[in-house]
């Protein structure tokens, strides 16, 4: 009674299920291919050395995007200077010093994990409310007699806002890297009479370095691509000069894409420039992500070798 049906239906089910899920996967591949293909096809012809090294001209319809590249790099460098020490120190503190079962430690971990899911626009609000309005205006009151210097959107506030946004990335990656360092190494170091700090700096951190680097690169890639957090904290559409100090505004690639595609008076004239800008932004983030992947796989191999 069950015999024939049993051998037939399962095969049909397998065909249906593998086709259905395979279709989903194929669609995802197609989406990525279409987006990348469109951007590369339309953006590549315009991407010349002059485009990368010149300032925009004639209402963004000619010239290049150098100021936006410069602003993006400046933003990301400042952000890294802020987030890397803070994030790595926090991770070291959490995994090497803090009592893992203490309520505070667990609370901090939950907070870090949840920070990763907070929408980037909320970080923009925070940057405006805290850095610009509170810290910046406070500095102005204390040092500049109320004159507006730091109490307005500026490169430094955008960088710090982005640093807070990427903080969880660095903390989580560093903690993971620290946890992957075999306990025996710590024990061996302690047995040689090294203090906890010596163990951390000479044994644990060198071992965890690739993991920490991976986190840093992922944070940089995220910081280079995000736009929402800097909307109110320092970015500008067009500036005649490059930012010369921390309290200047700056141009940025992502924001450039946003403004060019939404507020351009002549879409057809700006389209080639727009596509080339998108391509530059994509190449930048992909290059960073690819580096992170390579570093990570190297680290995996190293640990696989160490434990074998």
């Amino acid at each position, binding site marked *: 009674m069950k015999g024939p049906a049993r051998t037939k239906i*399962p095969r049909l*089910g397998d065909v249906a*299920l*593998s086709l*259905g*899920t395979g*279709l*989903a*996967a194929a*669609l*995802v591949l197609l989406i*990525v291919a279409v*987006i990348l293909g*469109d951007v590369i096809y339309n953006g590549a012809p315009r991407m010349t050395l002059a485009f990368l090294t010149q300032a925009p001209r004639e209402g963004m319809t000619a010239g290049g995007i150098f100021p936006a590249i410069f602003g993006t790099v400046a933003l990301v460098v400042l952000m890294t200077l802020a987030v890397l020490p*803070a*994030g790595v*120190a926090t991770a*070291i503190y959490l995994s090497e*010093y803090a009592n893992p*079962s*203490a309520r*505070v430690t667990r609370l*901090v971990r*939950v*907070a*870090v994990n949840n920070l*990763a*899911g907070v*929408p*980037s*626009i*909320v970080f923009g*609000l925070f940057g405006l*409310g*805290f850095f610009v309005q509170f810290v910046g205006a406070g500095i102005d009151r204390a040092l500049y007699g109320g004159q507006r210097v730091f109490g307005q959107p500026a490169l430094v506030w955008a960088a710090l806002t982005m640093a*807070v946004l990427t*903080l969880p990335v660095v903390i989580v990656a560093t903690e993971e890297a620290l946890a992957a360092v075999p306990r025996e190494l*710590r024990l061996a170091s*302690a047995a040689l*009479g090294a*203090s*906890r*700090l010596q*163990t951390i*700096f000479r044994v644990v951190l060198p071992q965890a370095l690739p993991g920490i680097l991976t986190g840093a690169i992922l944070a940089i890639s995220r910081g280079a691509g995000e*736009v*929402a957090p800097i*909307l*109110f904290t320092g970015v500008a559409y067009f500036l005649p000069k490059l930012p010369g100090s921390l309290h200047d505004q700056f141009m940025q690639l*992502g*924001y450039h*894409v*946003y403004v060019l*595609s*939404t507020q351009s008076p002549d879409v057809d004239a700006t389209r080639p420039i*727009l596509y080339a800008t*998108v391509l530059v*932004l*994509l190449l930048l983030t992909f290059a960073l992500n690819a580096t992170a*992947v390579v570093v990570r796989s190297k680290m995996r191999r190293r640990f696989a070798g160490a434990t074998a």
Partner: protein
Amino acid sequence: MLVGLAPPTRSALVRPEPRPVEASDPKNHRHAERPRLASRRPKFHALAEVAIRVLAFSSIAAIILIFVFIGKEAWPLLHDSVIGKEVTLAKMWFAQQWPGYDAPEHVWQPVSEIPKYAAWPLVVGTLKVTLIAMLVAVPLGVGSALFVSQYAGRRLREIIKPTVELLAGVPSVVLGFFALMVMASWIQQVLGLDSRLNALVAGVALSFAIIPVIFTVSEEAFGAVPHSYVEASTALGAARWQTIVRVIVPAAGPGVAAGIALGLGRAVGETMIVLMASGNAAILSASPADSVRTVSATIAAELAEVVFGGPHYTVLFFLGVLLFAFTLATNLLGEFAIGRMRRRLGGMA
């Protein structure tokens, strides 16, 4: 505040000793034989450890400050009498009778002679775009995760997984750009819609940002199902698809749910895509072909031009609190689901 911390100068694994003169107390090592490693201990160490602690606490403080400062800027909405003349919570959530309108209505017009701050058009707009995004992203994300973990051969897997990672690395402003410049025209041509930018375009573009989230978490969940489950099911005579549908999917269910919850949080909070592709008209309607204005896009579009501390500013921060609260809830839900799956599989494996 923090219990269980060893004082800075004590070495890693040495327990505190009650008696003062002990070999394990580093203070007494100074003139005794001791390993050379320990020679530069005192001043530098104390300083370095203080530095670690200061940095750690400042980043923890930053996390706490986010909660504090967004709330602080939104707080006047609840009690300030000057702001209360223009907008209150009740005015935001209940239909108001405005001059020139026949009946009470929900209107978001913060920059007009009589500013109107109805939240419903924005909330409904956000939910509409999110729903469309989830309807696209859940089948594609979970489906391709299932395919990769169950059916795909090694070579296919090594194409699909990096491609999804690639998609995850695409900045949202680029997805917004693509939706605005390319997809909007396609969708308009195919469906013959009136408005080029609408909830459908924004929702589909938004799904591209969420697919990687759902895929990654789901794929991990499918992979975490112990092999013994599959063996047991196969031993009972189940076919591959029967094992997948009746054993693997239910076992990985909480993990998949976690992925969906995280994707939902991301969808609701995502800003640049909807800002660029939704048309940004605050219309209260259920049609996916209408232009919409989401909560996040409203904040992004309006905050730059408001008076600091004014009613509009306060309302935008209040919307930020709403976003924050919602994503916090979805994150906690996701974390709870993952914990549950871990406990369940841990208990049975």
